């Protein structure tokens, strides 16, 4: 047998005084780390397959388990880190392309953490959200500029379709296929209760979830899976997926073995066949071509649905967004390079795209400069981790944010970044029936509602502190932001001043 060059990434520490050999860990681990050895009458571990999902730790009734990073490390080297060496070993052993899941974990700048918020003192009193009205409702779509008055003085506007959000937070696209049916149901129910929206992703809409249509965004991607008139009519808006922050410039490939009965029915492709989403839309080579897809969707749905165009944050994002704004789209969604994914080549995920904070500031400035900011709403995602990130995003110019990783965490995800294996022990990123049933939609939906409700309170508190009582007054209000430890160039792109200025 060839020598295995790699070490386990994690150590399973089992306190033998506490372990009662109940074998819960063994039953809970789809990676088959834990096993009861009858001869030894003890639990043993195969640490090689452990992904540190913490399922066993959370379910161990006697708290006998800890999962720790393996102390055994290769000789320290700042250039050739353990991870870098492991990747070489993996590829030398398999000849395979490295595949990862969830967002970019690299130590690259998080600009949210380098931006600070303002608060009112003395001359412009703060607003107390407990006793004064505070508005976090927002509307997405074109802001109508033309108002005409009839002879009785009554105002008339050209109404274009829009989305009404009770909170400026939506659940970002995750397809049925990448996540489980129970996870989809949890998102749909939470969005309905919160008065916001969840997004089908490109895998179609399960027939059981049409009833949540008023709070659903239906995605259309290059593969057109599950797209037909009934699907387009089902949702409140249609999102054209041009790109994704975790993997800009590449498509998707759901292998045939993951296409089970339910996914086959929802994607409208035969069971067991590959679902290939090509990298480009093959009918889109220009903004004019994008416009054709936007307008064809509007025509097919009787001009009743707002159209979102989702792009990844890449180098020329401001120019691209300007084109999208002119394509007839009502909303632009921009996904930053830390956005999550069910599977992406590691090199793409970790090296392609730009931070959402810079992309957002650049897009908002460009659209304002060109006088077309009111022609579209801007939604940003790609690692919005807290209410503070939401407030900063809106102050930088966003109309609302998309969250997905935070939503998965609310449902129980522990960010082990192994979605691509399909063996999610938390029942989220898996299609295995025995694992899916571990996620209870009643509980998960409630946890999602709790999370967003809590963020909504925090948003109100932060806004109140700044003396601002509506999202409308916060949007693009970059005077409320200051940078710390940023270069002049970074401050210029963000359009903010340094703290103390």
């Amino acid at each position: 047998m060839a020598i295995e060059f790699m070490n386990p990434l994690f150590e399973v520490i089992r306190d033998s005084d506490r372990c009662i050999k109940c074998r819960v860990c063994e039953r809970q681990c789809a990676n088959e780390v834990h096993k009861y050895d009858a001869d030894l009458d003890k639990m043993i571990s195969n640490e090689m397959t452990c992904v540190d999902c913490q399922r066993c730790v959370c379910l161990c009734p006697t708290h006998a388990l800890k999962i720790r990073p393996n102390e055994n490390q290769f000789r320290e080297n700042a250039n050739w880190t353990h991870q870098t060496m492991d990747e070489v070993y993996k590829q030398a052993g398999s000849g395979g392309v490295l595949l990862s899941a969830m967002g970019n974990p690299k130590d690259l700048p998080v600009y949210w953490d380098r931006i600070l918020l303002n608060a009112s003192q003395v001359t412009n009193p703060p607003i107390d959200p407990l006793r004064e009205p505070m508005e976090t409702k927002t509307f997405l779509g074109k802001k109508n500029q033309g108002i005409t008055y009839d002879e009785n003085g009554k105002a008339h506007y050209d109404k274009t379709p829009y989305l009404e959000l009770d909170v400026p937070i939506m659940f970002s696209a995750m397809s049925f296929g990448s996540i489980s049916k129970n996870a989809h149901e949890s998102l749909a129910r939470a969005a309905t209760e919160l008065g916001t929206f969840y997004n089908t992703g490109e895998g179609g809409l399960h027939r059981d979830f049409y009833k949540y249509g008023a709070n659903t965004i239906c995605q259309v991607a290059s593969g057109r899976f599950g797209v037909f008139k009934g699907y387009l009519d089902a949702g409140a808006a249609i999102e054209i997926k041009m790109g994704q922050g975790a993997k800009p410039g590449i498509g998707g490939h759901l292998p045939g073995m993951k296409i089970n009965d339910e996914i086959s029915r929802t994607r409208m492709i035969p069971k067991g066949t590959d679902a290939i989403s090509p990298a480009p839309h093959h009918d889109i080579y220009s903004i004019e071509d994008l416009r054709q897809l936007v307008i064809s969707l509007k025509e097919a749905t009787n001009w009743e649905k707002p159209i979102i165009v989702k792009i990844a944050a890449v180098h020329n994002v401001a120019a691209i967004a300007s084109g999208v704004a002119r394509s007839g789209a009502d909303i632009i969604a921009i996904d930053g390079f830390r956005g999550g994914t069910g599977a992406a080549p590691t090199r793409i995920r970790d090296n392609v795209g730009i931070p959402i904070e810079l992309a957002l500031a650049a897009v908002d400035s460009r659209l304002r400069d060109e006088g077309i900011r009111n022609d579209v709403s801007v939604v940003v995602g790609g690692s919005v981790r807290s209410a503070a990130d939401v407030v900063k995003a809106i102050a930088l110019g966003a109309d609302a944010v998309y969250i997905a990783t935070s939503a998965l965490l609310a449902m129980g995800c522990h960010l082990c970044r192994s979605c691509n294996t399909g063996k999610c022990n938390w029942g989220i990123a898996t299609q295995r029936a025995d694992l899916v049933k571990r996620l209870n939609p009643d509980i998960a939906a409630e946890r999602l509602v709790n999370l967003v409700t809590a963020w909504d309170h925090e948003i109100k508190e932060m806004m109140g502190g700044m003396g601002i009582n509506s999202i409308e007054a916060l949007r693009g209000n970059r005077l409320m932001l200051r940078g710390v430890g940023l270069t002049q160039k970074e401050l210029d792109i963000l359009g903010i001043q340094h703290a103390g200025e």
Partner: protein
Amino acid sequence: MNIDAKNHGYTELNKTIRESSEEKFELDNVLGQRYIGAGLSGKEILIHGTPGNALGAYLNGSKIIVHGNAQDAIGDTMNDGAIIVHGNCGDTTGYAMRSGEIYVKGNAGYRVGIHMKSYQELYPTIVIGGKVGDFLGEYQAGGIIIVLGIGVEGTPVGSFCGTGMHGGEMFIRSENAPKGLPKQVCCNEATDEEKQTIRKYIERFTKHFGGNTDELLSAKFYKLTPNSASPYKQLYVNN
């Protein structure tokens, strides 16, 4: 209902058709109006002139007959119905169509039948009378594409035919097989038995546009199918 389409935009035309209780429409003087019949069910539209791009996009069970040429992206993501073109049509004909049929008397452009797919009883058909451009059946995942090459000298398909094909079948009426097929595509001369499986489509073609079914079927056809022994599976290693 007769509609003179001259100086009327696509939104107006579609609205009239969608909201009318009538089922049959005849549009005269159509000149470049896009998206005609987008998402439409249960109607029949006869078009005189040249409809613009995305004719019958997301079509959901209507019949559209064009007396003239059609442009790009006819039948984009079509789910059911028929589009019959008594002329030529442009690129990405039948992009991602899932069911229904497209018959074109003349030639078609690039990327015909791209990402066409089938599901259960849904099985789309594209029949092109003349020749087609490059990338025929690119990413084809299901359904059937037939190119008859009537009056065409040489192979009636362009380069890169079947790139990314992973389902469905193509029949190409030609003395020679398309050149440069990827290894993921199998190409064989169609047997008489296999040719009989497409008789019904050829019969419909000759019914629409004239011609002799037996005569068309008597020529040599090549049948293209995905080569399941050589899949696209990218080798990945979990990281």
